[in-house]
């Protein structure tokens, strides 16, 4: 009996050690997986939809070039290191944009002439998806049958129709957005985008045949995963996709401010028509 009892104790002890080891293993296994998309359950709004409300911003270098790129000299020598291009890993899945040959040549020309051609220089609205990863915050206001996405840059705004899909009467800079929920993801079908916006400062471009399908998914309390599937048969040989996390602006007083940039672009757009030309190129 005594022997048996000792045996039991020892077996219990061993079981406890195994249990402790197992628990530790599980914690290690569970913790990282909860940071990945499938394990995280998005908090819901009061009407039961994943809650995407918030002020969000990208933290990457897609603004300069959505493809992988090394650091490089900026387009204006006098601005030196302050306005040069930081290196970036890129956000295009697979790293490469499947341009048709003539479209690839146009991108190179766009890059060469970017000071003249980049719509951002002119304070033109950023379009979709570029507005998402410009270095400015944007805010999602999640209404009952509509969502509004307001971008600080150029005060651009999109109203996403969450009811039965509707059609655009004409092309526009920010396109026409119909949204729906797929599980915990907001899926937005964006059509009727004009051909005047770019993807980045590197001159990556599209035509008026651009069709973007965006997915916004909460993956952590303060992060969204953003995906954009890009289709444009005039410019690309196949569909391609970009993806990146977007982060919540966590400052207690975070808010969208005003970046009405028209005034900042008037000299570059209309300076040659001045009565008295400005001397030099500095304020």
């Amino acid at each position, binding site marked *: 009996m005594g022997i048996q009892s000792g045996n039991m104790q020892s077996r219990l002890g061993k079981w406890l050690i195994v249990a402790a080891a197992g628990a530790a293993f*599980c914690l290690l296994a569970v913790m990282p997986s909860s940071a990945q998309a499938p394990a995280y359950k*998005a908090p819901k*709004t009061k009407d039961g939809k994943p809650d995407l409300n918030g002020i969000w911003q990208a933290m990457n270098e897609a603004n300069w070039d959505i493809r992988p790129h090394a650091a490089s000299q900026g387009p204006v020598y006098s601005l030196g290191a302050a306005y040069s291009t930081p290196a970036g890993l890129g956000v295009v899945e697979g790293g490469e944009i499947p341009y048709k040959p003539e479209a690839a040549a146009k991108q190179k020309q766009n890059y060469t002439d970017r000071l003249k051609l980049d719509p951002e220089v002119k304070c033109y609205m950023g379009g979709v998806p570029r507005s998402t990863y410009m270095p400015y915050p944007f805010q999602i206001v999640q209404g009952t049958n509509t969502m509004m996405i307001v971008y600080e840059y150029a005060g651009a705004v999109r109203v996403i129709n969450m009811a039965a899909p509707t059609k655009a*009467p004409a092309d526009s800079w920010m396109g026409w957005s119909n949204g729906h929920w797929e599980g915990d993801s907001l899926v937005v079908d964006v059509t009727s985008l004009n051909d005047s916006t770019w993807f980045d400062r590197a001159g990556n471009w599209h035509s008026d045949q651009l069709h973007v399908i965006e997915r916004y998914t909460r993956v952590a309390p303060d992060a969204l995963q953003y995906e954009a599937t890009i289709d444009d048969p005039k410019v690309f040989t196949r569909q391609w996709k970009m993806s990146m996390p977007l982060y919540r602006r966590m400052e207690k*007083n975070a808010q*969208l401010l005003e970046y009405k940039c028209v*005034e900042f672009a*008037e000299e570059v*757009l209309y300076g040659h*028509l001045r009565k008295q030309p400005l001397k030099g190129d500095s304020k």
Partner: protein
Amino acid sequence: MRRHLLSSLIALVAVVLLVSAPVFAQGAAQSQVTAKPAPAAKAWTMPRTPDGKPDLQGVYSNATNIPVARPANLGAKEFYTDDADKAASAATSGRGGRGGAARPAAAADPEGNGLAVHYDTSQFGLGGPTVKRAASLRTSIITGPEGRVPALTPEAQKRAADRRQFQQEHQWDSAQTRPLAERCVTWGFEGPPMMPVGYNSTLQIVQGQGYVAIVQEMIHDTRVIPTDGRPHGPAEIKRWMGDSVGHWEGDTLVVETVNFEPRMAIQGNAVSDAAKVTERFTRVDADTVLYQFTVDDPKTWVKPFSGEYNMVHIDGNVYEYACHEGNYGMANNLSGARATEKK
């Protein structure tokens, strides 16, 4: 033994995963309150958002035939007695007011110099009878016995005179000296206070958690107004549309705005750093939001003034007005001015 240990471990992992998964899911479920559909009732009841606030969401027209200032012949009469009275009075005062009133271009621009008319709105189907307006017997948007914007303070008169002189001397010098609306910086009507214009008098309200967002079709000017009790931002940050914070007083959304960019004009007069605008949004029936405002800027007007009009729900959308992107008029005007100088 080894096998035994391994199998215990696997079993344990499975148990913990099974236990932890519902825990995560439960956490999410607890924060979720089932939406209650509004009870069907014949009498109109205030629709509410899932968090219980009055639901102001929708697309509205704020086009109106009511003039900002009351026609002088009406004295202190704030309301017409009925539609017949209104029609008779409009015929004698000879004006339809702002808000897309159909008016022949020749009457608005008697000298035919093209300066008084931006667009003939009826020609483009932008105004006139095509635009839905809320019915109203008001004689003027500005309320009270005077029914007009009060007199400017001496300081504001000097500001306005200086600005006029600068404009006269420099109006064709550069884009930067052209009027703000022509530059697509602001039309000045987007406010606050939001004032009806000749066309594009369309706006949309979306309510999210802790915010009310208002996009106006006029040059896509948008305000995202926090309603979470935060104070205004730092006074150093001036904005064209000001710095708006909101709160609910009963079923009325009250929005207070300060920190205006000093070149922003309300009713044609640049405001001062003391300007404060208070707006009140009250949904009064299925189709109508009563919009009320008070402008208080003691450095600009001798006393505060208030106004109100009804915004009416419309079917359809707010469309993109890419004003700056399509502003070929600016280059044309300036090159015209340069060409004239060479003559």
